[in-house]
């Protein structure tokens, strides 16, 4: 269908994101912000940071999921409109990292919600974030 193709094209060209810190040490958050600012300029892919999950297509999570943020993360995920994607930024978000097995930590993002792209690194470099995001967008093209 032509309309489907147009909608898909529009989605890929304007993937709006919401950033949520699920318990990160702030290093990944700083790198995410750095990649959004003009030096690395994620906006050239149409990526905009939104203030609410209801406007966003991609949930960018940083940090291991602590037991305190677990319920909030699920709530934010459920508020997003379909189709939605989750990007785990940083080693902690991918697997729990050094916090794996800690009493206050549930594990990586995928222990709570499904994840579409994993970007490892401690902290991740902005280039890695751009690479991960572009790979995610390319995978959408084929759908």
């Amino acid at each position, binding site marked *: 269908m032509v309309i489907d193709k147009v909608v898909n094209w529009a989605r890929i060209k304007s993937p709006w994101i919401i950033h949520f810190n699920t318990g990160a040490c702030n290093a990944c958050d700083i790198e995410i912000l750095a990649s959004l600012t003009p030096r690395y300029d994620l906006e050239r892919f149409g990526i905009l940071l939104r203030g609410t999950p209801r406007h966003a297509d991609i949930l960018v999570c940083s940090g291991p999921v602590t*037991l*305190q943020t*677990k319920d909030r993360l699920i709530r934010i995920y459920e508020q997003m409109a379909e189709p939605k994607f989750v990007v785990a930024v940083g080693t902690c978000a991918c697997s729990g990292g050094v916090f794996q*097995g*800690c*009493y*206050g930590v549930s594990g990586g993002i995928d222990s709570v919600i499904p994840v579409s792209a994993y970007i490892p690194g401690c902290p991740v470099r902005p280039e890695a974030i751009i690479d991960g995001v572009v790979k995610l967008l390319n995978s959408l093209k084929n759908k």
Partner: protein
Amino acid sequence: MGNEETIKAALLQKFPQLEGKCEIIRQRRITLEVDRSRLIELLNFSCSELKFNILCTITGLDVGDDLQFIYHIANKEGIVMNVKTNAPKTDPVISTVLGIYNGATFYERELEDLLGAKVEGLPEGRHYPLPDNWPKGQYPLRKDWKPENINQQNKKEE
């Protein structure tokens, strides 16, 4: 070291049982150990008479059979006094310092949550910093506690 010596002398004069348990470890740092029954009296004296009216934080430790609590109190000149007190694990009761230092609520709640201390006089409240559904009787900062304790219970719930 003038001021530290004066403070130490004033403490020893008021509490002679501190003899040998109070020492100036370096410039602007005083450490002393006090019995838990005299803790409130000592903190009261330090706060009102010696003007140690800033509670920096409370540290909780598991030292084997005992739990140790260190009250880090400071005055405006930047002198920090570490007041240590012990309570046995079988009876880990200490009284609250809320009457002296108003900001102590969260420090004391943390002691209750993570080390299982019983803070007498602390108003009832929610868990902090652990989540609300944390099982009772699990104190993750005790040395004999294992993460499996909680994981097994999580699995049972699932």
